[in-house]
């Protein structure tokens, strides 16, 4: 079995700071492999341990930080890795990324499983897995909370708002995993030192036969400020008053008499 894991250099939104104008300071925000990406890598490595699968990781970007997340994936147990060199990958359209990945799959595949995180919390659109699936004409199982491989079938549990779905399909397949799928292993010092010596291959979009990338026409990004009234009452000073005010709100919203 051969597995491709896609990972992304994601910024840590809990560390995101802003200009006074509301513009996010994305350049200086710390970046790392996204949490659901780590779960995708973990899932791939588990299949390697259980079934002897050969695992490949790929990312799109150009800085040395991208090389670092490939090595982080190596330290978790991935066998081989690629960086597709693209400047400012965050502003690429999802369909453009999908084209690049599909070409990468055609060049380095075939793969039985293409696995990625269900959503990175930055500018990701949660659609990449689907776009890849449509371009390769293979099925997708998205938002997987638990993945098994049984009798030649991938079996995935997806818990959604209306209930629990179990999807079964044979390879080849695209799967996107949520952070519920597993607890990613933490690299040890030994695996970190070993990962330093492994090769990271780089490719350009031309190597993949892709002529051009399509960028998103981004006009502006600002902090999302919802204007709320922010009327506060201190219950520790006056519990009765605070509770009465609460009830007043309930009444004015029409939910209580």
């Amino acid at each position, binding site marked *: 079995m051969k597995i491709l894991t896609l990972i992304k250099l994601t910024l840590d939104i809990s560390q995101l700071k802003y200009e006074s104008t509301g513009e996010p300071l994305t350049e200086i925000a710390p970046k790392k492999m996204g949490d659901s990406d780590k779960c995708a890598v973990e899932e791939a490595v588990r299949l390697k341990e259980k079934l002897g699968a050969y695992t490949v990781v790929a990312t799109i970007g150009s800085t040395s930080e991208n090389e670092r997340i490939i090595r982080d994936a190596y330290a978790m147990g991935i066998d081989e890795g690629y960086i597709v060199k693209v400047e400012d990958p965050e502003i690429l359209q999802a369909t453009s990324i999908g084209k690049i990945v599909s070409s990468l799959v055609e060049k380095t595949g075939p793969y039985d499983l293409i696995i990625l995180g269900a959503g990175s919390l930055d500018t990701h659109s949660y659609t990449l897995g689907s776009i890849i699936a449509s371009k390769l004409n293979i099925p997708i199982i998205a938002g997987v909370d638990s993945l098994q491989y049984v009798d030649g079938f991938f079996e995935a549990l997806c818990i959604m708002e209306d209930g629990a779905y179990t999807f079964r399909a044979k390879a080849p397949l695209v799967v996107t995993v949520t952070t519920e799928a597993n607890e990613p292993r933490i690299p040890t010092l030994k695996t*970190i030192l070993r990962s330093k010596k492994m090769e990271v291959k780089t490719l350009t979009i031309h190597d993949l036969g892709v002529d051009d990338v399509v960028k998103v026409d981004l006009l502006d990004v600002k902090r999302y400020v919802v204007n709320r009234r922010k009327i506060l009452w201190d219950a520790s000073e006056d519990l009765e008053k605070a509770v009465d005010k609460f009830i007043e709100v309930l009444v004015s919203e029409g939910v209580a008499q």
Partner: protein
Amino acid sequence: MDFEFSEEEVRFRESVQEFCKRYIEPRWVEIDEGGKIPLELIKKMGEQGLFMIPVSEEYGGMGGTITMAAIAIEEIAYHDPSVAVAVYALLNNGWPFIMEKYSLEDVKREILPKVARGEAFYGIASTESQGGSDVAGIKTLAIKKGDKWIINGEKTYISGVREIQELPQGGGYFLVAKTGKVEYGHRNITAFNLILKWDGKVREGWKPTLFEEIGRRGISTGAFTLEDFELEDKYRIGEENKGFYYLMEGFNVARILVAAATIGSGRWAIDQAIEWIRNRRLFEGRPISSFQGVSFRFSELYGELEAAKLLTYRAAWLADKIYIERDRKWREQDLNVPVALCKMKAPEATGKIYEELMKWYGAYAYTKDCNAFRGWIGTLSYLVGAEGAQNIMRIIIARDIIGREYVKG
């Protein structure tokens, strides 16, 4: 000069942080309050490779550096400011490192892999009731009979006494005992791998007791007597009567890790302080950080911690040059002052930070709703002299810098 950590050191630090956030941070108060580190946590730490970091891979170690060990200890202590877990880890990093240098091959293969996996404990047994700093004055006696040593004596204020009894394998200590003529002073001390419990069996002649500590309660502190305790000669560490020197080497490495532990705890205290002084509002809603009495003091304490941190990593860097890289430019004794400096400064800086933090908290700090006291009392163990009395550090520095003949009494 390069004041940056290498990429691997940064990645390793992050991996330790991730481990600590998952498995240590949520439980540190429980560990301190309950007075016990769960055995499964010790096993997990072993699996994660947090023990025996600078020991060769051949014996189950991580093949890393003392700097890497210091990084791990600092982060563990940041996530358990009572430092109990960090102390457990540093003992099982520092003392196996020295033991590896001088023990017999098959003894290393017997003992070390189990320590690496968190199945056995390996610590230090030097202190006796009549003196800790005065190592030359120890009374525990080891007499050779054929290919065995018969050991009689007692050791006190020893960490890990309970853990050895509870861990599945057991464990033991880097022990120092008198083996030669009394007149030879410190040249009649031999070091041993004192295996007290192994393969689940406790050896005859070992009688342990436990103390109740006021802080750093997760790791046990106890005492034990050895009554006609038999130990095979193969467990001797290095040459007879050279034990004092091996001990001093061991203390040099262990003290760097101790400094790293107190810095980790001090860093936690600093972070708590920042949060508190920003948000505690008094006198018309001013944050107390807006009072210069508070912010100035904060800056001083921050400076002390940073200074101690740099001293610690400088000592770790030098220890790596000497022991790991075997860079001939440096001699072992070059390590004495850098180590004494960081072991002197780090607990003192951290102690001052906690004292001030408690004052900023006010009455809140005096209740168990506030956990800062756990860090204060935990790191106090190093101010009262664990792993080397603070004033012994001053003697080491004075002797070296002012000159031995000028500081003699």
